Every structure is written in C-alpha cells, then in structure tokens.
C-alpha cells in the first residue's frame, strides 16, 4: 500500500494533453472537408469555413525545422542564448518551440527534429502542481 498521491501534471500550453497514465501528447484538429490542421479547436475550419466537427488527433512527435533563429537577447530575466524553431510535424501540424542542440551553427531549415516532453523548466502552478512542457532535439534516426 502506498501513501503517495499521484499528482497529474498540468499542460504548460493549451494543446498538450495528459492521459490517465500521466503520459502527455500533442493534440491536433483536422478539418474533415479540406484537411487543414491546427492545434486549436475552432468553431469552424479557418481555411474552408466548414462547420463540420473537426477531428482531434494525436500529433506525430517527429518533424522538420521550417524556420529558426538563435535568440541572443530576450525579455529581462530570460536565459539566453537559445534556439527558437518553427517545426512542421509529419502530419503538417506547425509548432513553435525551443531546440536543444549543442552546436547552434548546425541548425538549418529542413533539419529533422524530435519532440520531447519535459517539466517546463520546473515551473509549478499556483496549487503547486507540476507542469508538462516540451522541447525539440535533433533527430538522428537512432532513437526508437
């Protein structure tokens, strides 16, 4: 018998979902009429205006860098430098994120990357519950 109470982490951003087993995933929504995808469940398809219900799906954790920058100065108190990337996932969902990579000079458009869930920098919500966030790492093809 255990006395510990499992605290389910809270999504650090709106499109992260956390299952009953505490495993997170990125959720996407697809228009069944035109195929457009987005991370937000809108009232109608923002592309074709169809009001057919959008289909929710679990996004792929793999994708490619569409654009990037190395941030050397940000808001006061934010640790720099870091690599900001726009990633197009395999299912065409677009995410913004931080790419953790040792060599900033190796970052390029089209670079294969993999999404990794994390503890959102150790942040806690007002009730003390942990958050779940994500970042990207280079995808070398060796990972499972």
């Amino acid at each position: 018998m255990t006395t510990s109470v499992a605290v389910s982490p809270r999504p650090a951003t709106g499109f992260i979902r956390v299952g009953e087993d505490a495993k997170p995933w990125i959720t996407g929504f697809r228009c069944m009429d035109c195929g457009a995808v987005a991370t937000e469940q809108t009232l109608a398809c923002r592309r074709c205006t169809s009001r057919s219900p959008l289909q929710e799906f679990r996004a792929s954790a793999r994708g490619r860098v569409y654009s990037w920058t190395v941030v050397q100065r940000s808001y006061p108190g934010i640790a720099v430098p870091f690599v900001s990337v726009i990633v197009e996932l395999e299912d065409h969902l677009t995410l913004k994120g931080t790419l953790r990579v040792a060599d900033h000079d190796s970052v390029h458009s089209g670079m294969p990357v993999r999404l990794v869930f994390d503890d959102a920098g150790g942040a806690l919500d007002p009730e003390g519950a942990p958050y779940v966030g994500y970042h990207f790492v280079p995808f070398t093809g060796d990972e499972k």
Partner: protein
Amino acid sequence: MSSVYVVGADLIKFGRYPNRSPAQLGAEAALLALDDAGLTIRDVGALYVGSSFNAASMMGQQILQQIGQTGIPCVNVSNACASGATAFREAMIGIMSGLYDVALAVGTEKNPPGMLPSRKTEGPPPEGLFGSGTMPAVFAEAGMVHSAAYGTTIEQFARVSVKNHYHATMNPKAMYQRETPLEEVLASEMIAWPLTKLMCSVNVDGAAATVLVSARKARELGLSRAIRVRGSALASDPWEAHNPVMFDANSVTRLAAAGAFEMAGVGPQELDVVELHDCFATAELLHYENLGLCGEGEAGALIDSGATTLGGRVPVNVSGGLLSKGHPIGATGVANIVEIVQQLRGEAGARQVDGARLGLAHVLGFGAAAAVHILEKA
C-alpha cells in the same frame, strides 16, 4: 466612387516625450496638419484616431479636449501597427460615404520602453520554454525562410539598415539622423540571428495627422497641393499553413497590395516612391516581393543594386523608415502617408525623390492586419 484628397499632412519629431501625454502629442500633430491645410478644427466633420498601447482611453475625445470640443463624432481605432492606417482609411470611407466633407485622421503613441511585450497566456511564461515570441525573433524567423529559399545573406538584410539610416540623415523629424556603415550594423549587438540591434526599429513616441476632404471641398480649397487617394485596401491574415503559430507577414500584405493596386488601376512598376513597414530589416526585403517591387527571390539583389536608395529606380523609406525615423506603433501608419504626401507635393527637402507622382504607403500589424494606400499628385 467619389475621389478623396489629402490637403493637410504633418507629424511631430519622433523621440521621447516623458512629460507629455499621447493625446497632447496627437493634438500637436492635428494642429500642424490643420495649419498645413489652412483649416481649423471647426471645419472638421469627424475625427478618426489610431493608437495601440493607448487605445482604450478615448484618445480622439482627449485630443479634442486639447484643441476644441466641437462635438464631432470620434472613432478610436486599434489595429496593432496598422492602427494609424486604419484610421486614415476610415476617414477616407467617411468622406466617400458623403457624410463628411472634411475628416481628420490622427495616429499617436507612446511606446512602452524596452522590448515590446507579448500577449499574456495561461501557464508558465512561454518565452524560452517554447521558442521566442519577441518581435525580433518573430521577424528573424520570417527572414530565415527567405534566406533558406533564396540564399539571402545577413549582409543583404543589413544593407536595409544602412540605407534607411542614411535616408534619415535628411529627415529632421527622424529619431536618429546618423549614418551606420555596414560594418557597424553587423557589429552591433546580435538580438536574434540575423537581426542585430541596428536592424530593429526604434521604439519611440510620436504622432502624425492628415486632413482628408471631398473632391468638392478640394476644388474649393484649390488643388495645387492636394494629393488624391487612388487606392486603399485593408486586409486581415488569410489562411496559411504555418500561421498563426508562425506569424505570416507575406500573404496579408499581398492581399492588401492586390486590393489597392486594383482600386488604383496601376501596377507596382509605376510607383515612384514607397514607404513600407520596415519594423525589422528582414521585413523590408520580404515586402519588396510582397508589394511587387521585384520578382520572387529577387529582394536581395534589389537592395544590392541600390534601386531602393534615394536616386534609384524606386526609393524605399526615404523618411528613414521605422528603423531610423522611429516606430510609434499607432502613429506609424499615418506618418508613412504623410511622407508620401510630402514627396508627391515636392516638399520633402533634401530627401526629395525627383518628379515623384505616384507613391505607396504600407503598414503591417501583428495579429495580423495590413494596409496599403496608393497616392497620386492631383
């Protein structure tokens, strides 16, 4: 459609005004524009005011409290960096409707100091955790798409800053009037690759104003200095696969440009002078193509050729642009139009584009809004 003319246009010197309110700045610009037109606030039928950070403060009414409470309708407009141009366009529509013969459009802003804040979100602050939402990073990423597709270099982006800082040395109302050679632009503090500090627009306070009139009123006043609004379009961001996760500066600008060119019945090759939204050096090159000043992928070559420098084929941002004149958010859209008006009148002094007859003013608001106006010497 009935024609609309600009008969008054002016701006205050852009800078920092710690002891004055945005309404006082806007009121000063309004009086300058009215004096330029030879009119008074008693002649004005409606007031349209653009402001972003100071939007929810009944700015137009505050301005009238400074210059005369004549009881006219006030429309207070907020549309990010397109606020001022939106106010101008609404004034134009008011004249076109036949309701007013004279309308005043003002843009005014006191920008907060430092890097402009991002929108509030739930959860932990996203900056650094989920990439960067700062404006330099957003426009760096926009530029890197162009760089990946066409091989555009940091030197080509930097030349935009060299050019616009050079232009500003001829504009006494610019925040900065100092040339910055390429080496200095490249050596200034790196903010977000490929943008150095000198490739980011200047965060300042400022105000600009224009007086718009009907054709009937313009004839009554005399057309010698009148400038005709030939084209006007305002667009919101159309669907694009990466937008809004990645801000799309391009499709919204192209939509507005197409609308304005169609209304004016002219093409980009006929333009003599252009003021476009160089909030960052990367943006200016993107907008060369978005506005049709060159073909796809040719923006780097266009800046290299000198065609967009004063004396070139189509000078761009001869005012010094947002990069050197400064970028008081809600005032910028009106200030761009003021510069085109002064150019078409032949009153731009040392930075005058010889024989300018047709000009374009463009702004881009984050979120997104784009406005394009095409003006012609009457």
